[in-house]
C-alpha cells in the first residue's frame, strides 16, 4: 500500500437528477498526492473536480470506491479524515460576526489542536499571514483580500498535513490571486500534500508539481507538465487539455458506436486510450 497522504481507488459518485436520471459525476478516479507536492486537478466546469474534492473532504459520500487521507478511509473514519485536512473553496466562507482571532481559535479548537497550544498557534498564524492589524476586527468589516488571508489561515489553523484548495482564485483579483498562489507554494515548502483544483491553465502550469486532467468525471492523465508535453508532443497546457478532452469525447463517441473520425491520433501514454487498445488487442 502506498504511503501517500492522499490516495483514491475507483472513487465514484453518482447523482440522481430528475430530468437526466443517474449522472456519473465522478467515475472511478485513481489519484495520489505526496508530501510537499501540489497535485493540480485541471478540468472544465462540471468536470467533477469539486465532487472529487468534496468526497475527499467527507462532505459527500462516495457511491463506490475508496479514498484515504493519512491512512484514514473517508467513509469509515470521516472525523479522522477531517482532522487531517484543511479545506478551502469559494463556498467555505468565514463567520462574519466573529473576529479573525476568534475564527482561528475556533477552528484550531474544534479540529482538535492541542488545547494548551491553541493560543500560541493563533498568534503564530496571525504573524505568518500578517493579519495582526485587523485580528480583532469583525470579519464582516474586512476587505476581500483580508478575508482571503484569514480564510487560508483558518484552513491551516490545526496544522493539517493535507490541504485542499478548490478553485481558490475564482473570485479574486489578479493581485490577490498572485498572493494566494505564493501562500500555497509556501505551504508546499512546509511539506503539506496539496490538492489544487482549477480551470485556469496558467495557474496549473505555475503551481502544480503534477497535473491530473479530469473530464466528464474521469481522470484522463496524471503527469508532470513536462511529462504531459512529452506524452502529447504539445507545449501549451491548454492544447494538452483540449487534446485529452477531445480524445475522451472521441472515445465516448466510439463507445456509442457513432464515429471516432477526426478524434486525432492517440497520444502515446494516454491511459484511457491505451487501455482501450489493450482491450481491443486482447479480444483479437
Amino acid at each position, binding site marked *: 500500500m502506498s504511503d501517500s497522504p492522499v490516495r483514491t481507488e475507483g472513487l465514484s459518485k453518482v447523482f*440522481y437528477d430528475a430530468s437526466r436520471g443517474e449522472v456519473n459525476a465522478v467515475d472511478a478516479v485513481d489519484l495520489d498526492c505526496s508530501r510537499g507536492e501540489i497535485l493540480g486537478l485541471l478540468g472544465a466546469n462540471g468536470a467533477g473536480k469539486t465532487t472529487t474534492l468534496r468526497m475527499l473532504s467527507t462532505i459527500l459520500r462516495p457511491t463506490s470506491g475508496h479514498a484515504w487521507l493519512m491512512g484514514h478511509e473517508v467513509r469509515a473514519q470521516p472525523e479522522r479524515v477531517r482532522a487531517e485536512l484543511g479545506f478551502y473553496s469559494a463556498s467555505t466562507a468565514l463567520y462574519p460576526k466573529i473576529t479573525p482571532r476568534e475564527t482561528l481559535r475556533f477552528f484550531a479548537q474544534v479540529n482538535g489542536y492541542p488545547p494548551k497550544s491553541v493560543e500560541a498557534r493563533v498568534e503564530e498564524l496571525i504573524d505568518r499571514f500578517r493579519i495582526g492589524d485587523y485580528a480583532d476586527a469583525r470579519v464582516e468589516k474586512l476587505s476581500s483580500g483580508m478575508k482571503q488571508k484569514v480564510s487560508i489561515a483558518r484552513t491551516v489553523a490545526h496544522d493539517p498535513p493535507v490541504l485542499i484548495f478548490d478553485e481558490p482564485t475564482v473570485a479574486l483579483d489578479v493581485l490577490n490571486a498572485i498572493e494566494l498562489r505564493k501562500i500555497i507554494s509556501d505551504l508546499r515548502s512546509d511539506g503539506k500534500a496539496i490538492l489544487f483544483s482549477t480551470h485556469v491553465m496558467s495557474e496549473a502550469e505555475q503551481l502544480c508539481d503534477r497535473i491530473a486532467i479530469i473530464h466528464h468525471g474521469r481522470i484522463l492523465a496524471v503527469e508532470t507538465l513536462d511529462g504531459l508535453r512529452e506524452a502529447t508532443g504539445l507545449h501549451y497546457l491548454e492544447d494538452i487539455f483540449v487534446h485529452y478532452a477531445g480524445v475522451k469525447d472521441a472515445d465516448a463517441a466510439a463507445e456509442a458506436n457513432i464515429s471516432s473520425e477526426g478524434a486525432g491520433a492517440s497520444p502515446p501514454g494516454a491511459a484511457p486510450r491505451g487501455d482501450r487498445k489493450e482491450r481491443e488487442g486482447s479480444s483479437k
Partner: protein
Amino acid sequence: MDLRQIWILYRHEVRSALRERSIVAMSIVVPLIMYPALLWAGFSAMSFVEGQAERLTSRVAISGLPAAHAPLADSLRAHDRISVIEWDGEPEEALRGVALGRLDVFMGFGPPGAGTEGLADNIQVELAYNEASDRSRAARVRVESTMRSYRETWVDEARTDLGIRNPAWADFAFVRDDVATAEEGIRFVLGLLVPFLTLIMVALASYYPAIDATAGERERSTWETLMTVAAPRANVAAAKYLYVATFGAVGGLLNVTALALSLRWILTPTGGAEELATGSIPFGALPVIAMGTMLLGLLVAAGMLVFAVFARNFKEGQSMITPFYLAMIFPAILVQSPDIEFTASLAIVPVVNVALLIREAILGSIPLLPGVVTLVSMTVFVGLAVAFAQWVMRREEVFLGASEGGLGTFLKRRLGVRGREA
C-alpha cells in the same frame, strides 16, 4: 459524544448569534421590553377609554313616564352626568339613536307586568342601551343606580300606604362577599396571561436562531466551512440544537421575569398596583415556571430545527418554520379558557400540559398526578423530538442541503420512493 467539542461548537454558535442584531432583538430585547410595554399600553388604553366614558354626560331619552313618577325624572336630572331628553317621537327611532350612538339610553315606561297590576301607579321600565359602547354602558349603570334608589323610596311609601310595617315587611337580605383577595384576583389573570406569553415567547425566541443555525449558515456560505471541521455531524447538530433551545428558554424566562418585575408599573393605569402586596407571582411558582420554560425550549428547538434544516435561505426558512410556529401558538390560545381543568389525561398533551402547569403554579397549587404526568410526558416528547431531529439532520442530503422541498417531501421520499440518489 465529545462534550468538549459540542461545547466549543455551541459557544461558537451563541457568540455569533449574540452579535446578530435581529436575533438579539427577537430573543432578548422583545421578551424583556415588548410584552410588558404592550400590556402597559393596553391597560393604559383601557383605563383611558373607561375614564373618557366616565367623564362624558349620558344622554338619556325617556318616553311615557306617568305623572305619578315625575320625581324619577327629577332624580335623573339631578345627576350631574345625566342629561334627560323627553322623547316625543317613535320608540323605534330612539332605539335606532341608541344603536347609532346618538343616544346612550332609552327609557320606555309602560304598564306593569302580570300579577303586579293591583299596586297603584305600578310601572315597568324598559332600558335600551348599547353593550358595544363604553359610553352607553356607563349611562346604563348611572340610570340603574338612580332607578334603584327611586324604586326603594317608592316601594317604601307604597308599603306605608298599605299599612305594612316592619318587621312584617322584612325582606331577605342578599349580601355579596368576594372571598378572593385582590392579589388572588391578579394571580388569576396572571395564570391565564403568563402561560400564553411564555409559549409565544419561547416560540418567538427560538424562531430566528433556528433559521440562523441552518438556512442562515447556508446563505452565508459558512455551512460548508462547518462541514469540514473534524467534528461528527451528530456533535454539530447537538450544538445547534442546544443553541436554539438556549435562546428559546432564555427568551421565555426573560419574558416572565420582565413581567413579574414590571407588573406594578403595568397595572398602575388600572389602579391595580396598589392592590398588589409583594410580588404578584408566588415565589414557589418560579422554579416550576423556569422548568416548564426550559422543557418548552427543548421541545420547540427540536421541532423548529427539523423544519428549518431543509431551507436553503432565510426566506425559505421563514416559510418552512411558520406552520410549526403557529401550531405552537394554538395550545396557548386553548389554555386561555379558565374552565379547562388540569387533569392527568390533559397532562399527557405536550405544550398544553406545561401551560396548564404554569397556570396552576401561579394560582398557588399544583395537582400532584398531573404535575408528574407533565414531567414524564414532556421528557418523553423532548426525547422523541431530539431523536427525530438528529435523525433528520444526519441524513447526507439534508445536511448538505441537497434535499429538495421541506420535511414533508423528505419524509415521503424516505418512507416511499427510496434511492433517489443512487
